[in-house]
């Protein structure tokens, strides 16, 4: 039996495995590194970083919901300078492959952040998070507006296009995801990250007020997996040549395989790591086995397999 080619590519970036941390669910890797070597997974997608340090939203920031959770962190982070000084060198030292996720309040902030990443070595790709739901002004969720999405990606492309692959992270909370995906690809995105959390809310029936400090939060976990599978499937159908990093409730190798069959070239694991710090390692091992069991000799053969007509037809 030939060994399975488990590698994947996003733009010109090559990864030995298709498994990644989901942005915002692994900080900058240090915390998971005590449970497994970071270089053993495809790559670390770091928590979305902004120009300045940010303390995020008030507590409570979390509510567990059936098969999921709401979070309302609000992009707490050290700011790009501290991130580049401390976190990137650490990840490089761990021999982890790095996808840096950036978030901005304006189109210009994204370009500025991208410019700061230009001269940094050791970064494989850049994720442009235009879909964080935990910002004060919903108008700032660029990914809900096709024109704003395009402008952000266009600005980043002008800064680092051709040097680092650009992955646009999109929100499922839109009427027509496919047209937004097409727009950012036209503007220069080399790949897509689907999906960010789904905007949700919990009201505490004792206090009779919203439970989260930020009132609304992003829903993640197995509860949103069917939404993510649908999003990946729909976008892959129209943009089959664009690599997709699929995420949303993946908790097992089977879940990861489902996402790949829908059209994802890689999968990111977020909430599952909260429940189990070694989830990424088990998912990776299970996925390898499932692909082999089904007779695939490479991961790439399985990408989008669900779009093929059934052999019985």
């Amino acid at each position, binding site marked *: 039996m030939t060994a399975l080619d488990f590698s994947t590519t996003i733009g010109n970036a090559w990864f030995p495995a298709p498994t990644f941390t989901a942005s915002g669910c692994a900080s900058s890797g240090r915390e998971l590194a005590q449970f497994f070597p970071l270089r053993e997974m495809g790559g670390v997608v770091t928590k979305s970083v902004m120009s300045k340090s940010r303390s995020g939203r008030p507590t*409570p920031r979390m509510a567990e919901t059936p098969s999921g959770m709401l979070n309302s962190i609000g992009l707490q982070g050290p700011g790009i300078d501290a991130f580049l000084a401390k976190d990137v060198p650490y990840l490089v030292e761990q021999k982890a492959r790095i996808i840096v996720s950036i978030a901005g309040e304006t189109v210009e902030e994204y370009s500025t952040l991208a410019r700061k990443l230009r001269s940094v070595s050791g970064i494989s790709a850049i994720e442009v998070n235009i879909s964080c739901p935990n910002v004060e002004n919903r108008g700032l969720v660029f990914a809900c507006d096709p024109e704003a999405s395009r402008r952000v990606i266009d600005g980043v492309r002008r800064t680092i296009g051709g040097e680092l692959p650009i992955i646009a992270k999109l929100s499922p909370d839109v009427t027509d995801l496919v047209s937004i995906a097409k727009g950012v690809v036209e503007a220069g995105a080399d790949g897509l990250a689907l999906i960010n959390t789904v905007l949700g809310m919990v009201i505490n029936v004792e206090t009779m007020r919203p439970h989260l400090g930020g009132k609304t939060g992003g829903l993640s976990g197995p509860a949103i997996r069917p939404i993510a599978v649908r999003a990946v499937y729909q976008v892959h159908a129209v943009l089959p040549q664009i690599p997709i990093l699929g995420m949303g409730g993946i*908790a097992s190798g089977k879940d990861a395989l489902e996402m790949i069959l829908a059209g994802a070239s890689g999968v990111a694991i977020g909430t599952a790591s909260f429940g189990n710090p070694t989830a990424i390692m088990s998912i990776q091992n299970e996925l390898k086995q499932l692909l082999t069991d089904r007779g695939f000799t490479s991961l790439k053969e399985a990408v989008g397999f669900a779009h093929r007509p059934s052999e019985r037809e």
Partner: protein
Amino acid sequence: MMQINKSAKQLLAPIVSNKRVGQYHQIIINIGDVAATCKPGNFVAISVGGDSSRMILRRAFAISRVSTSPTVGGTMELIVAAHGQGSKWLCAQGEGVVLDLVVPLGTSFGIPTEPVPVLLVGGGYGSAPLFGLAELLNSRGCRVDMLLGASTASKIYAPMEGKRAVNSMRIYTEDGSMGTAGRVTDPIAEIIKDLNVAVIYSCGPMPMLAAITKIADQFDVVHQCAVEESMACGVGICMTCVLPVANEDGSISNLRSCIDGPVMDGSRVQWSKVGQQL
């Protein structure tokens, strides 16, 4: 600032016993050699609900004490109140059930280098981790006095053997159903003066910790408190369990109570800003 507990391990560990003690459950879990790396103040994150559960997040519990016996090996004790879905599930698990744990997590109580008088203050079942701490402080020659408080008698956790390591133990209930009627914070100022207390250790609800901080600051006494914030992961990656804490330069940062806590310097926690936008 960041201090990851490098001893943390993920393991499968069987329940040795699960007994009801008043309002609480005393659960003993066999964690083998890992017991040796657990310090007073550390906590454990436990996967709850079994395979078909809708509960996807671990639950964090303070470790009340660890011990090593030649027959059972290393064990840890948890005192659990069956409040929510996760703790109810855990309290319903019997001997032999194997749990998925990540342990030990978080910071631990600092132990004075000199044998100084110390005061331990516990609210409700928050008193549980203080008994293991009392034994350690006592073995280092510290004079240990303890105050326990709760709204009512049934919520006081005070095991008989817990008294061995302490010089005195006073109980306060708000309804007067046990000990003195009043709040556990009422006598603290006096005790500090009488006994020349050098360090206060506390564990319990946040308003209690905030009230102790005020008194401790007034007398310039070190106050190490174990905080409790709701956590999704317990290992530092979810950023949900943050508390506003003053940095050396006076600025305030949201620090994770799972990594920079649960044991924190009370005087640096900005109690009035908890739940506020920084």
